[in-house]
């Protein structure tokens, strides 16, 4: 698959839900051309290797801890992604770092890897996002769509929200976007 959009995070841990929720919104609000695959990766590491290994371009969507205030949009690419997961800026550092290393080890590292995310306000055990992150979600959704278009793939706003029969919509119903 030329482009993989991988949403990472635990939906039970407050703002950590950013990755899966952005995925759900992209699925319901946008139409993607052939060659773009959206995957809700949860908090997994090595089990996602097959998805990553088949991608030419990978866009990781995650909560990213930096010094900036909650809700700040963060974009990292190239070596900065590896450094970020190694330095534990991404809150799924172990899984993501091991996943990227494993892809390198088996010689299947994507041509490009970009990390897009928001600085979380709270990642404690609760449902629902903090106000700052909730307000910034739409911006992150649009940033991912721009990223897909910049790679030369189609990604346009749907005329209406899709019906919700895809598996990921169960997630939206359960956890609310």
């Amino acid at each position, binding site marked *: 698959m030329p482009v993989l959009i991988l949403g990472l995070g635990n939906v039970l841990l407050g703002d950590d839900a950013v990755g899966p929720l952005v995925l759900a919104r992209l699925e319901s609000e946008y139409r993607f051309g052939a060659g773009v695959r959206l995957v809700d990766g949860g*908090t997994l590491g090595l089990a996602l290797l097959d998805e990553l290994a088949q991608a030419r371009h990978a866009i990781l969507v995650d909560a990213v801890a930096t010094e900036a205030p909650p809700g700040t949009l963060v974009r990292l690419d190239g070596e900065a992604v590896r450094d970020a997961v190694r330095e534990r800026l991404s809150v799924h550092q172990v899984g993501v770092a091991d996943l990227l290393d494993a892809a*390198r080890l088996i010689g299947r590292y994507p041509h490009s890897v970009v990390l897009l995310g928001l600085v979380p306000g709270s990642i404690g055990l609760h449902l629902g996002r903090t106000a700052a992150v909730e307000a910034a979600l739409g911006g992150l959704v649009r940033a991912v769509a721009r990223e897909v278009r910049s790679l030369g793939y189609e990604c346009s706003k749907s005329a209406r929200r899709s019906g919700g029969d895809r598996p990921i919509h169960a997630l939206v119903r359960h956890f609310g976007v």
Partner: protein
Amino acid sequence: MTHVVVDPITRIEGHLRIEAEVEGGKVTQAWSSSTMFRGVELILEGRDPRDAWAFTQRICGVCTTVHAIASIRAVEHAIGVTPPPNARLLRNLIIAAQNVHDHVIHFYHLQALDWVDIVSALSADPAKTAKLAQSLSDWPLSSTAYFSDVRNRVKAFVERGQLGIFANAYWGHPAYRLPPEANLMALAHYLEALDFQRRFIKIHAILGGKNPHLQSFLVGGMATPVDPDAQASLNLGTIAELRKLVAEGVDFVSRVYVPDVLAIASFYKDWFSIGSGVSNYLSYGDFPMDDSPHPVLYIPSGVIHAQDLTQIASVDQTKIAEYVTHSWYDYTVGNDAGLNPYHGETNPNFTGPKPPFKRLNVEEKYSWLKSPRYDGAPMQVGPLARMLVAYGLNRPTRAKTLIAAALKQLDAPPSALFSTLGRIAARAIEAQVLVESMGMWVEGLADQMARRDYRIQDTSHWHPSTWPKDCFGAGFHEAPRGALGHWVHIRDGKIAKYQCVVPSTWNAGPRDAHGQPGPYEASLEGTPVAKPDQPLEILRTVHSFDPCMACGVHVVDATKRELARVRVS
């Protein structure tokens, strides 16, 4: 005396912290603490019980299926519904695939490097490695050229300083004992296992609509349509694909994983008498073989007391109670009481130190895990418990045959299984038992299609109006790490109370009201530690339980000065 501390760094499922006293080169006492509250039970109260699985399956960042299975079984038990045969077969396949996948990843990617020295592997002779590999198994990838290529590839990565995955280990530690050739063989299989696991777990995507976080679970059955001719369902094409993936799995586990474990074990036989710990074992059993209310289970249930394999008692859930004497919770009935999960309480009361801290006060409460006990006794759960029950029962099973063969090959008595290495060997043997059994369930599905039985859900109890006003249910499952139970109380169609007792709580829980240590704590007693600033041996024993919690180690000497800090999981 040296004080050794294992400390958390990630939040995937919870944090694990181990504190140990080391004296005369051995651990004298150890304490296991989870430093993260996981009160998912509170999130579930008041919700529709048919939705519970979608929440619970996100509890664990490692096993996505296990809490979904336990949850739907608990709700089905409460409302009195039995899934049809197709759903039973699909669930057995999903559970077995999860276990096999997890066991392979655990051995190669989370545990092997405690026993395999990568730096030593880089100095191995590829020709000698090929000879060694060929003597152990007829696996085709065992040529000199192959091992030479693996060595050069990994060398290049290490020299470029790229390999975080191999960083922070204790390369060159005196407790590493494999010759360079065995290290190189294991390293090659580490890489092959990466590729194997990514193919094998496609089974979950086929059966679950997506992976991770399968979407095909349903109270009363499964949401996967079964129809030999339809496109968007389990059909003859998917049966063919499953056959192929299962055959690949049998191949890898029986010709690579099991031979590797036995070969590595033969260099570390002293570890068959280290890490024994708690002498009781509990298996709920799993993999129903028929559709009756009390089906025969392919992996049997049973309780073992005091390592006595001749007396396997049956499991009675009313004997399970959780204690909070050393846990950061309060019980309304008093903190030294034990509560059965049906009457369980989750009232957090954190009294521990504010992180970062040097030491826990282990005289008081010191963990977010409760202390589950069976009839008052601590229990080990996991592959070893399951394999011991199967081995002890007086009936022929594949598990019994494979355990006997492994013991013979290693020239070890059955008592060798009660050990750190026993837990590792049992996990490998169980992977083989389960991956072989998957073929039987795939054929079961094919037979169902042939006789045109496409039923996938019992909908007779879907509507809450069909449920009793007040009902209780317990759902049991054997997850990769061991016995998992969910208990639910449903009132007026909503969840009134929910409790999960997870494998890592049985194994990693703290001392109870009577001061009895949990399995991690007990197993560490007597573990040798050659270099307290590099506690490799402690990691071997903790990792042998397959902790679901990632953690880090730092070591503190008697003056409590931090000596080292590394990631261990």
